[in-house]
């Protein structure tokens, strides 16, 4: 209960700002300054959401969240494994870091035939895109976090005869958490973008697909309905990550 109250207090300001912004937008579109097939009036978007609410939420959002969930978990697991492997072995680092980098510089649309070839139009092609986008900040953040630890503590543990693995679990893991969480917050948002882009590369459900369909019909209200829901989902995911971060980093001497 306390949580919710303080949440409202905290974000009330943003809410007020949003309302003012929406009213202004409505006026601008009404007055015809911006064509409504490019930026629709907020009221139209609202209607587009309400009219399709159950399909937007229970079909499209659900599918997007599923893709995001699997992709994000995979990127955390594999991203952390890669970062840890790089941390332990310079050899692995020298090989993997460039590959990780290359994976990011390739335009995803160029990969679409390859993904389709491998995964077909199953959920896995979207998971693959989600993974590809979200694992990069995790690898970099986790690796940088692991390297950031004060070496005096490492020396102390070494003097106790700690193995490399013990030094890792007892010290580096904890000292990496701040940088790591900073990157997790990025990654969760990128995972959402990833799922959306994945849906553009071939899908029949999901908010990304929905927005693409609506855009093809020049239905701006429909596009923004999907965007609105995506944004809200993104903010909620980010807030959840921030709360986990706050909780886990509570006892740090800040």
């Amino acid at each position: 209960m306390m949580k919710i109250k303080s949440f409202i207090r905290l974000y009330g300001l943003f809410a007020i700002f949003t309302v003012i912004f929406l009213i202004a937008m409505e006026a601008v579109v009404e007055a015809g300054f911006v064509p409504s097939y490019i930026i629709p009036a907020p009221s139209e978007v609202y209607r587009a959401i309400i009219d399709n609410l159950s399909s937007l939420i229970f079909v499209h959002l659900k599918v997007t969240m599923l893709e995001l969930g699997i992709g994000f978990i995979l990127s955390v697991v594999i991203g952390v494994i890669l970062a840890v492997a790089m941390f332990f072995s310079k050899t692995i680092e020298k090989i993997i870091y460039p590959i990780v980098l290359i994976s990011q510089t390739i335009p995803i649309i160029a990969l679409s035939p390859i993904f389709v070839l491998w995964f077909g139009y199953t959920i896995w092609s979207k998971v693959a895109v989600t993974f590809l986008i979200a694992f990069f900040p995790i690898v970099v953040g986790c690796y940088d976090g692991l390297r950031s630890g004060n070496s005096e503590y490492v020396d102390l543990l070494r003097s106790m005869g700690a193995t490399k693995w013990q030094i890792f679990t007892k010290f580096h893991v904890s000292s990496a958490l701040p940088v790591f969480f900073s990157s997790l917050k990025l990654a969760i948002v990128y995972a959402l973008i990833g799922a959306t882009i994945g849906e553009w590369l071939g899908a029949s459900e999901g908010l990304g697909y929905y927005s693409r369909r609506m855009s093809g019909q020049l239905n701006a209200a429909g596009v923004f309905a999907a965007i609105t829901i995506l944004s809200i989902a993104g903010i909620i995911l980010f807030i959840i990550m921030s709360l986990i971060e706050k909780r886990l980093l509570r006892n740090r001497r800040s």
Partner: protein
Amino acid sequence: SSGNKADNNKLKDVTIMLDWYPNAVHSALYVAKEKGYFKDEGINLKIEMPADTNDPLKMAAVGKIDLAISYQKQVLLSRSEDIPVVSIGSYVQHPLDALIYNKSKGITRPKDLEGKKVGYASSPTSEPIIKTLVEHDGGDMSKVKMVDVGFDLMPALATGKVDALEGAYINHEYLLLKKEGVNVGKMSLEDNGVPDSSELVFVTGEKTLKSEKDTLTKFMKALAKGQDDVKKNPKSALNVLLDHENKNFKLDKKVETESLNILLPLMGDKTTPFGQQNPKQWKNLADWMYKTKITPKKVNYKDAFMNLNY
């Protein structure tokens, strides 16, 4: 019913990838599926949607899908790049592509494009088409400014960033732009020097054609039956499509109805029945594509298509 279930086991899976998301042009597919024409031929049809307009051809070539709806020009281009695909039937036998332009910019004939901006969607055929168009009318192509507008054709014209579009369809973009109140006109390509072509064709991989010719023939047969139904009763055909789609996406009924009206005359007539491909059309197109350097080498058009007998 339970009888159907037993049949299901014997059905052969056939995957078709559309050119774009489902719209009026695909009515026949949905009608034939709904009415069980494919099942009658022993086919269990799966319909998929592509990411990029280039994907379906490649997927058909590697046999990841059995059939793709693609463009005649793309088939020739693919063959020039040694991508082993074959067209087995014509879906829309004439161009839907036309020069769509903003009437208020004073365009009345192709020559008027001089000094104007023409938007296109990264397609290698757009520039040669406009060139053919303008030069056929005695104009100077070097005075036309071509603008690659990426994915979005409609906003480019609607916001006045370009004066005309190449690659927009008379049954889609044209209708939608009109609906939004943009003062658009259209100009046919084949009346202005560009050879006639099939906008949409059914494409399969060479390997698939060899091994599954029988099944593909049956597919065309079932589809032709579906197209007959569409012709006879466009309204109810469209309803099948709309019903299928409306669960999750609302198609604009008015636009799709108008679209189907434009499409039907282009999908088989007395001279060329539905699905039939005209060798002459293939030859003229292949020649033109070579002449305009769209294909780096001359494609043997006879290998590019095959008319199935059903």
